């Protein structure tokens, strides 16, 4: 006689207090990594890629859904330079402070932009246009000093050239804004 196999019980995971289910776009990210204990950094990278930063609510949902201690999620998110906790501006301006760029006076570019934009490093302008950051090295050392705006690398910058480029971007963005209105 054939033994009837019991239907396996659905594994119940204690998720703490009832919470709002995570939004679908977050679930789509999390579902790819369920059961992978090494995935935390990759998950955070994808969340940041999607939202532009790491929203607290989504981090809490990530911890709950994937079974990581919240403290670990926070610890990892604060350890790596890449992760940020507030929404960035439309353009992420990163001035390279690698050795070659430094020797090529990239510090002056940073100072100039800080002064012109009126913000400090890792801050965003009030109009949410620019976020000013530094990057350790983008590996374009022969073109030093370089500035990276979103994913575009600009070579052989000077303080003036850098500011001109940003002004150009701002004008372009404002222009587009008017057209769409």
């Amino acid at each position, binding site marked *: 006689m054939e033994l009837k196999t019991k239907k396996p019980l659905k594994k119940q995971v204690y998720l703490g207090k009832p919470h709002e289910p995570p939004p679908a776009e977050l679930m789509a990210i999390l579902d790819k990594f369920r059961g992978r204990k090494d995935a935390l950094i990759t998950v955070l990278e994808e969340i940041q890629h999607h939202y532009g930063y790491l929203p607290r609510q989504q981090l809490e949902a990530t911890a709950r859904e994937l079974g990581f201690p*919240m*403290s670990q999620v926070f610890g990892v998110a604060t350890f790596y330079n890449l992760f940020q906790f507030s929404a960035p501006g439309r353009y992420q301006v990163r001035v390279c402070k690698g050795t070659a760029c430094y020797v090529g006076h990239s510090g002056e570019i940073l100072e100039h932009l800080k002064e012109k934009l009126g913000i400090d490093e890792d801050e965003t302008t009030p109009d949410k246009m620019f976020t000013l950051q530094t990057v350790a090295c983008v590996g374009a050392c022969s073109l030093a000093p370089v500035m990276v705006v979103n994913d575009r690398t600009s070579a052989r910058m000077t303080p003036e050239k850098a500011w001109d480029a940003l002004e150009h971007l701002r004008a372009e963005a404002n222009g587009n804004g008017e057209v769409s209105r």
Partner: protein
Amino acid sequence: MIKLTIDGKTVHANPGDHVLDVALENGIDIPHLCHHKDLFPSGSCRMCLVQVEGAPRPQTSCGMTVQDGMVIDTKTGAIEAMRRDIVDLFVSDHPLNCVICDKNGSCDLQDNAYRYNIQETSFDFELSRPKYYDDNPFYVRDYQYCIMCGKCVRVCDEIVGANAIDFSGRGFTSIISTPFEVPLAESDCVFCGNCVQICPTAALLPRSKIGKGREWEMERRQTICGYCGVGCTVEYALKDGKIIYAQGTPDGAVNGEFLCVKGRFGWDFNSSPDRLTEPLIRKDLAYELGLTDEPWEMPKTSALKGKPKLGNFIPVSWEQAIDITATKLAGIVQKHGPDAVVGLTSARCTNEENYLFQKFMRAGVGTNNVDHCARL
């Protein structure tokens, strides 16, 4: 058995032992701040560096497993100078407020500053994490005294499993914190306070201890925690007969060094005026038995509501109380049979007491109606 030489002394060890543990067991003192025998070695304080013959640079003894024929020098001039510098660096980021500090006398960093004769730092004094949290009834966190040994994080992870705290940030300004620096009550903290106990400095202090006396004024008394049947060894620090704080002892038979929230912080009933210290019987029964002249009737409201009023009872001796109870029980059994009686015992009693109680119920009273509250 592995044979190695530490400071010219031949010692024996088991494979897998760590050099620091072996040295300490053999009475060879190696300074250390982040080591705890029950936690995985971290090697972050760098105080236990030793010179191993043949190694190009000093080695961390807390995480180094013993090897046969190792020759170790724990106190070369270079290493002692380095240890002194390391303490010097620690105190450049830790106010030496020892005079007013509640940890004075039991602080590992103070001991090492004393050992290396450091009165103040020779570098620039600069506080990296001047944060103070007083967000729960049990303990305060004063991060200016934190030396980032990470013992609290490890005990929370490895022993307790709560993972309420972790390192956050990086480098000089990194700090041990709850997620998003929320108050502890909103974190996964279970307030067992084991982090408080193993903190080497005054970064984590039981609130009950603050301002209540110096370490050396306190009398220490070891006892078994009365909270449940596990029987953890607990040590109370007392001053003028009053408990100041409770902690585990390194040699606790069942619990090792660690306690739970009840054992560590739940002792305030000890000196509470509400505490029952003698047997009491209710006044109506006392009147019935002629122990009082005042007639009394049970109020109509449920006895479970509101605080029990001591005025409803009169104190009796233990003999009287047992006598009355036995007579009453025997009466019920005679009149209604043994199954009319139910016995309920408590998790606060020991296993032995619970065993005796069920035996009393079954063999003495003659019923299987016996149960236990099972948890506290």
